[in-house]
């Protein structure tokens, strides 16, 4: 359980971010470290001004998927940002913004939600990942 889970988050839709948050929280509950690298539209979703907004769903969700996701939220499923917060409370979670994506989106560290621990390049992410698996979402 000591080997870290390394997640590259690219997509910024609420369903994919929720799936990533669930994987992260599950790993945190097991004491498995998780390193998260935020790129492109996932990073955009972690902007402080944007984190609670409606980020839509992946195209394959369709209208039926929208209804299902909304029903789960009404039943009390926490929003993805809250799931990440709870995972971080358990410890062992490091969330880093991709520096290239920071440039792309013209962001400064102060623009990001406090869930984000820092900014790094892809080299640092790879080195920190070590031999652990890398999952792209």
């Amino acid at each position, binding site marked *: *359980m000591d080997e870290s889970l390394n997640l590259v988050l690219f997509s910024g839709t609420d369903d994919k971010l929720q799936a990533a948050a*669930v994987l992260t*929280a*599950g790993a*945190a*509950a*097991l*004491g498995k470290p998780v390193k998260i690298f935020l790129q492109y539209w996932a990073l955009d979703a972690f902007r402080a001004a944007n984190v609670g907004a409606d980020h839509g769903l992946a195209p394959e969700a369709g209208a039926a998927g929208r209804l299902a996701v909304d029903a*789960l939220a009404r*039943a*009390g*499923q*926490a929003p993805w940002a809250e*799931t990440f917060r*709870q*995972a971080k*409370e*358990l410890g062992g979670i490091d969330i880093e913004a991709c520096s290239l994506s920071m440039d792309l989106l013209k962001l400064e560290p102060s623009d990001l939600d406090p869930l984000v621990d820092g900014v790094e390049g892809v080299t640092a992410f790879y080195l920190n990942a070590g031999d652990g698996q890398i999952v792209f979402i």
Partner: protein
Amino acid sequence: MPTLAISHTIDARGLSCPMPIVKTAQVCRVVPAGSVVELLATDQGSTKDVSAWCRATGNELLDQTVDGSVYRFLIRRN
């Protein structure tokens, strides 16, 4: 089985995966070793998740029962 002194009850009924386990992990971090924690959950994955979590974290699943749609687990925090 003999009656156990439950030191903490986690009501995770209605919460979806992985929140029952996240809440269990949060509680087991703060209760003293030897405490018995009761978890109530309705998530269908919780039967397999709780036993796997206990195995992986060295805690002991003392008992698990189901009453209608509610799963009840007794966990000894080791």
